[in-house]
């Protein structure tokens, strides 16, 4: 492989690679990130590959990342010359075979198609590329365009610009969409000051949770004394409920590498680390391959773009400790130690990894960088709100119709995200709250649904941006149980260094557990509030300082639910097992025996076509009868 030594080299490679993403023959793309694979994309890929082989078809079949609409996966995109790009959704092996048969007859299965794409936006150049259309099947006209379907309409893809469009394991496809041109530009035309100036001016803030101004962080690190300096990519996406970093690494690893390279050049660092969760094996694999390919082209290594700048990147796998997402703990972990945070009287930008100046940014932040350089700070700063610029990727999950990853401009309202993009709460249930910010965040209730989403507004509402998890909860979600869930998580993940965090969270969890068991007593809420204050004020790192947030925010907006548990010994959402009983509505019961057969405790009695009954002494409230009753005869009270 020839090294790329100049922008000219890069441009000619880009020209040659265009054929890869806009081929002159039919190309099929399958979304095969972890989420796609979990939905069965692997089998679909296998089936189509076999069809192609058996029939000796002239079709290119490639894997791609996740385009965000995880709900409808597996997604299969067909690009046939003369057609728009069409996306088949919810595919399986059988449907895939049929879709291929249709394709060979120049036909489509309209009802399986999610959307079409008539023009592809090349964000980096600010141009669009039309699919040259001719001889379209009539049915194709009725297919909504990708930009017109509600899930995508309000989205703006910056960090996830390539996910689901390119083969993440082929660097040439990244280059074909303008990849590494920002790095080339920086290394050949910019000095360090200009890069930092541009990033500062863009207003980009850290996407990992802190929201610190990225440009300012780079500036401090650049002016810090000491050498070597390190840059680190925090890919320890610990927030349970957020997965955009996984998706970016699995779908577009080079955007992160390019961002790190630009940052390293600006700061004056020649060594980088990517600290990635061990729970993401596919992301590790794809990232390793990406690093190898970038090395082969000379984007990593010595004298990059003939500029005299050297940079290498190393991957460190995490050990499954949430606290290692905290900067000092993460750095300790890279050094091979246990991940305990330290006091930050001296910041990591002055004394971080191995006691040297270290700049840490998260995956999504790094992925934004190349685009800001390519399009300019002014372009970026136009998107978003006054204090929060650009876009943010949210993982819209939980009790929501359209689950997936959505990238939206800052300032969009919760309502737009949940209803316009997310399609609201399924099964006609009532929306109750949305949880943002992970274990450090809080629950935002329905009355604040018009809240514009940015760093400041979420904090003001008692929650936080965090890494972008957005878990929608409906009337069947118990807010006391949610608070208990987060504390149980934090209790497991507290490193144990600070007594207040180690013991305080434990005591709070004990109180919450008692409340959910119907053993709550007067004064419990006040005690929780008092403990919250102590834990928040006397813990060293953000894990402890923010640990009470899930409790405080649910107390702030759902105090009545706590009171119902404590005073009435009732769980209004009917979740807390000790406070509910299952019974059968004898009028609705048809005596179909389904629940009786499924009940693990043999707690259900009754003959065929006779109303069934539940023996309360045997019932363990597993809910399997409720999940499987077709007649809605199971009552929970």
């Amino acid at each position: 492989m020839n090294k790329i030594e100049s922008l000219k080299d890069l441009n000619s490679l880009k020209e040659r690679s265009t054929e890869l993403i806009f081929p002159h023959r039919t190309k099929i793309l399958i979304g095969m990130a972890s989420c796609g694979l979990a939905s069965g994309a692997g089998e679909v890929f296998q089936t189509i590959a076999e069809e192609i082989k058996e029939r000796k078809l002239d079709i290119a079949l490639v894997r791609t990342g996740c385009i965000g609409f995880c709900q409808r996966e597996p997604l299969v995109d067909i690009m046939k010359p003369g057609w728009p790009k069409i996306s088949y959704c919810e595919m399986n092996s059988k449907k895939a075979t049929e879709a291929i048969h249709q394709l060979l007859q120049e036909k489509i299965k309209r009802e399986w198609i999610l959307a079409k794409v008539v023009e592809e936006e090349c964000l980096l150049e600010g141009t669009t590329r039309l699919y040259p259309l001719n001889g379209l099947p009539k049915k194709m006209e009725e297919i909504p365009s990708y930009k017109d379907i509600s899930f995508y309409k309000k989205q703006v893809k910056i960090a996830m610009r390539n996910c689901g469009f390119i083969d993440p394991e082929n660097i040439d496809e990244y280059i074909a969409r303008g990849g590494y041109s920002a790095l080339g530009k920086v290394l050949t035309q910019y000095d360090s000051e200009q890069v930092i100036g541009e990033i500062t001016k863009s207003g980009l803030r850290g996407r990992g949770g802190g929201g610190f101004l990225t440009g300012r962080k780079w500036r401090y690190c650049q002016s810090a004394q000491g050498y070597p300096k390190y840059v680190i990519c925090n890919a320890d996406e610990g927030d349970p409920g957020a997965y955009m970093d996984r998706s970016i690494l699995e779908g577009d690893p080079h955007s992160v590498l390019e961002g790190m390279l630009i940052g390293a050049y600006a700061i004056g660092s020649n060594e980088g680390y990517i600290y990635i969760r061990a729970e993401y094996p596919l992301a590790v694999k794809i990232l390793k391959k990406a690093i190898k390919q970038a090395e082969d082209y000379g984007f990593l290594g010595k004298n990059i773009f003939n500029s005299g700048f050297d940079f290498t990147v190393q991957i460190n796998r995490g050990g499954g400790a949430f606290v290692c997402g905290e900067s000092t703990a993460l750095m300790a972990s890279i050094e091979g130690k246990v991940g305990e945070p330290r006091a930050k009287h001296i910041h990591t930008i002055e004394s971080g990894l191995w006691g040297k100046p270290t700049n840490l940014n998260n995956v999504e932040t790094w992925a934004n960088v190349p685009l800001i350089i390519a399009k300019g700070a002014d372009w970026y700063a136009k998107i978003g709100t006054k204090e929060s610029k650009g876009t943010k990727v949210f993982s819209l999950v939980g009790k929501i119709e359209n689950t997936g990853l959505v990238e939206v401009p800052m300032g969009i309202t919760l309502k737009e995200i949940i209803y316009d993009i997310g399609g609201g709460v399924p099964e006609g249930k009532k929306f109750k709250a949305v949880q943002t910010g992970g274990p450090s965040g809080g629950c935002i209730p329905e009355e604040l649904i018009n809240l514009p989403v940015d760093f400041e507004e979420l904090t003001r509402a008692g929650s936080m941006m965090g890494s972008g998890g957005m878990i929608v909860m409906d009337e069947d979600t118990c807010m006391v149980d949610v608070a208990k869930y987060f504390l149980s998580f934090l209790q497991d993940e507290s490193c144990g260094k600070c007594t207040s965090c180690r013991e305080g969270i434990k005591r709070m969890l004990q109180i919450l557990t008692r409340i959910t068991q119907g053993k709550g007593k007067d004064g419990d809420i006040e005690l929780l509030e008092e403990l919250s204050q102590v834990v928040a004020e006397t813990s060293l790192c953000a894990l402890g300082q923010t640990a009470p947030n899930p409790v405080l925010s649910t107390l702030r907006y759902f105090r009545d639910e706590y009171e119902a548990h404590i005073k009435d010994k009732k769980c209004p959402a009917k979740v807390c097992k000790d406070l509910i009983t299952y019974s059968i509505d004898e009028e609705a019961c048809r005596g179909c025996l389904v629940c009786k057969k499924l009940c693990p405790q043999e707690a259900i009695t009754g003959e065929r076509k006779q109303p069934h009954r539940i023996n309360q002494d045997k019932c363990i409230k597993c809910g399997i009868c409720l999940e499987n009753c077709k007649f809605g005869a199971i009552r929970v009270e």
Partner: protein
Amino acid sequence: MDLKVVDKIVDRYKRKESALISILQDIQAEYNYLPKEALLHTRKRLNIPLTKIIRVATFYNIFTLKPRGRHLINVCMGTACHVKGAGRILEKLERDVGIRTGETTADLKFSLEIIRCLGCCSLAPVVRIDNDIYGKVKQDRVQEILKRYE
């Protein structure tokens, strides 16, 4: 136990103490857990106190000092999975496999553990067995899934 395997792993990281976590990860990938002999040998090769190794091995969730079963069942306990009923799936698995969370069956067939989170939140609740991820799992599917593993 063939300690040459451990030697190879330690040498791969140039016997650097800073690579301890990676070394332990590779040892665990080899044996499915961290065997005592392997840790004692690592101590010798890295020339560090055993307490240092044990401290790391017990701090990080992914490590285990007890043998794991041939198949590792991970029930995702992320927030989305939690609100979508992962707790019930976990209890169902405990009943069907006949062990508590964190335990291994006597025949070393299954180990049952929780994980937070697999990042497949859109498919909640999610269960991973070895490298296979199952999404939108319902209690009545658990038996059928378990049968796939020998």
